[in-house]
């Protein structure tokens, strides 16, 4: 029964990535190579981040929200952004359309993130006799994370891959990207300072990821229409 629970939570955590890959047109164009490369870039980025965190951060004595430490953590979080940039622009991909490129990169990134952060606790914890809601929450968090990463990848592709960026939308694009990049800091701020409980934080993550996904989708569509409009002109 407890392996059953592990299986359930693993499906909840990693299933959506597989489903996303097979359901969308990614599987038809065989973009698995891109995803794997993005996962590797994520691993390297995570290592660099760890080294920076270990070097620059102090061990906190209590659990309060220290603004300088959080600022430092946010700055280190921008290494994430740099990694994403690398994955989107520098990696040599086969001839796949931009649309698929950012989706594949986002998917690979999110999958590596889930595996790294959630597989080990799941394996160790969910197989015990004791039942907690923790692993189900983790699974939901993984889903929210996937949506967030896809949204960020979309905005990233808008910012760095397009040759002609639509002038009017740029500030919004940068603002959304900024919010997405600082999302981890926001969540830790909510958890520590405001003392939100786990389900509340989770609800916030889900809603914010859906909102950001919607926003980035709208931005993509708008930039497409603006571009086609420009071409027509």
């Amino acid at each position, binding site marked *: 029964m407890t392996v059953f*629970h592990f299986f359930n939570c693993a499906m*909840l955590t990693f299933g959506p990535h597989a*489903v996303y890959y097979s*359901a969308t047109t990614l599987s038809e164009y065989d973009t698995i190579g891109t995803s794997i490369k993005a996962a590797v870039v994520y691993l390297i980025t995570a290592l660099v981040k760890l080294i920076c965190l270990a070097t620059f951060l102090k061990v906190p004595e209590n659990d309060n929200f220290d603004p300088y430490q959080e600022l430092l953590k946010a700055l280190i979080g921008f290494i994430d952004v740099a990694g994403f940039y690398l994955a989107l622009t520098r990696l040599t991909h086969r001839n796949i359309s931009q649309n698929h490129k950012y989706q594949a990169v986002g998917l690979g990134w999110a999958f590596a993130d889930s595996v790294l952060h959630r597989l080990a606790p799941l394996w160790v914890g969910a197989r015990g006799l004791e*039942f907690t809601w923790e692993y189900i929450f983790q699974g939901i968090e993984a889903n929210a994370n996937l949506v967030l990463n896809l949204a960020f990848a979309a905005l990233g592709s808008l910012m760095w891959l397009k040759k002609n960026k639509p002038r009017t939308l740029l500030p919004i694009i940068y603002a959304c990207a900024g919010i997405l990049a600082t999302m981890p800091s926001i969540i830790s701020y909510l958890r520590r300072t405001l003392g939100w409980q786990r389900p509340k934080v989770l609800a916030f993550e889900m809603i914010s990821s859906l909102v950001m996904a919607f926003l980035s989708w709208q931005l993509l569509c708008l930039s497409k229409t603006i571009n086609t409009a420009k071409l027509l002109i």
Partner: protein
Amino acid sequence: MTGRQRGGGEVVCSIYSVLALVLILVACVELGDAATAVDVYRLIQYDLAGAPYGSRFSGLNHHAGSEPFAPGADLSRTVVILPVRELNLTLLQEYITGGRAIGGLLLLLPQDIGNKIVGGNKNKDIGLVRSILSELEQLLIHANLPYPVYFAFENDKTNAVLADVRRGDAAGQPASAATGGYKLVVSTAEPKKVSSPTITNIQGWLPGLKGEGTTQLPTIAVVASYDTFGAAPALSVGSDSNGSGAVVLLEIARLFSRLYSSPKTRGRYNLLFGLTSGGPYNYNGTMKWLRSFDQRLRESIEYAICLHSIGSSSNELWLHVSKPPENAYIKQVYESLSDVAKDLGVTVGIKHKKINISNPRVAWEHEQFSRVRVTAATLSELSVAPELLESTGGLHDTRDAVDEAAIHRSIKLVAESLARHIYGYEGKNINIFADNSSLGINPSYVNSWLDLLSRTPRVAAFLSKNDPIISALKKELSDHTDEVHVQHEIMDGMFSFYDSTRATMNIYQVASVTFDLLLLVAVGSYLIFLFSFLVIITRGLDDLIHMLRRPPQRKTKAA
């Protein structure tokens, strides 16, 4: 039913079921407690002359349940949790002697039974709980139970678990694999027989002043047994039976060692102090100790005073003898005791019980002496001889079953009467061990030893040869006496014990099988929903329909 309708209907159904499941899951959020671990103490397991008694198993891995149960419910995979405070003994009889098959029994003892109550304000409840406990103990140690029985102390965690279990049971669902609840797990090895349990007798010898001539000085022996037996051997501290006797013996030894330290005050009697083991088992240890005496020593013993349970607060003590009270020696001992008792406000009665050599049952320690023709008597607060394995210190016999004032009185009584006899001041109005004198009783000494003994479970089979308490008693006697001799013997074969007396019980909150199945359905439907949603968005609805229709087409193609 077109595929389109089916696809649409499926999506709607999934949404509703997922919503309903989310609501159910959210409503049950309190299920998410962490596992707790509780110290538990197992019921004793022993064989008496081959017949098995006590709880025969130690491993436990079942769901928790509590009263009231539906009549005829299957409890063979349930651990019944019973708090002793509200115990209904007739109900327990059903489980024990009625042969109702249960998976295990967990008895919750109230916290204050284990702690010392400061001040004289003894709760009436405690008295009631004590009487329930002694009845419960007698019931359990004479039963043969084919399931594990554990004792644990009540604390917040166990109270929370019990309340939860009761709530669940009240809702009409007996806890089992299908309905969640709590699982109690004790993982210990199978209990093994304790091979050759040792009983250790400690004796201290205080020689008297040898006068002119080489005549052997007479000896007076003061004896007490220090080991216990109870339903939970890890909790059998036996403060009154017979921690009180051991403490009185130690204090008397200390007082007389002061008197005997200078030749001017040394009496013309040798004093022999004996801390014997094997008390509950027909004073087996005392018999072996007496057998080890050589003839001369045995013949030189004028009389022996045995001490058993002299620590409770009643003002009545009994002198139990096996020789008729008209016997000159017995008369003398009794009179010296009652003289001192008058001054202390205590009455000492005399009880005569003939010994039957063919009967192996030895109810008092003095009977072992009488069997080797040494005059002896037992001083005790009990008026009736206890049965086998009764009054041997058990769950109810904790620190606050003993009254310190009563112990002081008993020490004074025995020490004064001994001293008056040794120094020939019988009948005289003299107070040798006056309070606040250098020979006064030391209350802190008495209390500290009483506290130590009330913290140490002393079931003989589980005391090794070098157990700390045995070494402590030996060291104490060697401080007060000249020669200390420790005798290790193997317990007689009539009793055999099994180990595994304490363990840690893990209480897990488990989710039921139905919950896991629901979760599987929820996650599965979520993934299917996600899949169809994505296909519809990226490739269009027709693609989804084609995908669903493709497998049958492929099959026909292959065929």
